């Protein structure tokens, strides 16, 4: 896969989700480095991210039902979107019985991967990297 030439494929929804995912990953990453177990701030931030990613996925569902389709493969778009929308939830579920810094790092990892995958979703939609 070649690196994309620019960032023109990024729509505003993807930009918001990607930026928020990175911010949440940063908050949780710092908290993990400071040895904090998952707490109000990190769990709250992940819940906000979950809500935004749910809206992000629903938007693709609506657009698809209206008849638009990605330039890249449809199966890949949905493989990414399903993973994206599940990641914060799975992170929260797994962090619940992990009252150490590692639980917080689980949240950071989930948010980071979700952010990157949102970027990939936009690439698949625009057909970046497919020829």
């Amino acid at each position, binding site marked *: 896969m070649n690196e994309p030439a620019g960032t023109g494929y990024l729509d505003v929804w993807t930009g918001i989700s990607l930026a928020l995912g990175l911010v949440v990953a940063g908050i949780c990453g710092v908290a993990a480095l400071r040895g904090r177990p998952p707490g109000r701030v990190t769990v709250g931030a992940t819940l906000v991210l979950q809500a935004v990613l749910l809206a992000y996925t629903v938007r693709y569902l609506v657009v698809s039902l209206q008849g638009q389709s990605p330039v890249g493969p449809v199966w890949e778009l949905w*493989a990414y979107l399903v993973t994206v929308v599940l990641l914060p939830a*799975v*992170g929260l579920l797994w962090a619940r019985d*992990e009252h*150490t810094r590692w639980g917080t790092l689980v949240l950071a*990892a989930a948010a980071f991967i979700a952010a*990157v995958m949102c970027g990939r979703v936009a690439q698949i939609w625009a057909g970046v990297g497919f020829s």
Partner: protein
Amino acid sequence: MNPDHRRHGPGKVILVLYVVFVIGSVSRAGYQILTRWEEAPLAYGLSAFAAAVYVVATVSLALPGDRAWWLSVTTISIELAGVLIVGLWSVLDPAAFPDATVWSRFGQGYLYIPLVLPVIGLWWLLSPRGRPPAR
């Protein structure tokens, strides 16, 4: 010590990453093999192999006990060898890999996580907390 401590602490973070790769590699391999097998059987066969390795590694990482530990060490070693061999192969002979696999170009399309993940996994399994309890 708790016999299933391997899936706690750092092990839980590693498990999250492996689960993501299971979803990614299984869906990719499934799609490639079901729809375009004849285009590049080598690359798609390797995709399927990689997917199987990720599935076995993830399940064994989540299970307690000695046998699961050995299975994890074995599959993650195969994973590391796979990403190194396929990575090198795809760089030397790009024509054999017209479509990305998880391991081609050392996992470049996946932020090189496929290269880093088995190293972290083996470190964890061989570290004192990741080992099965001594008898």
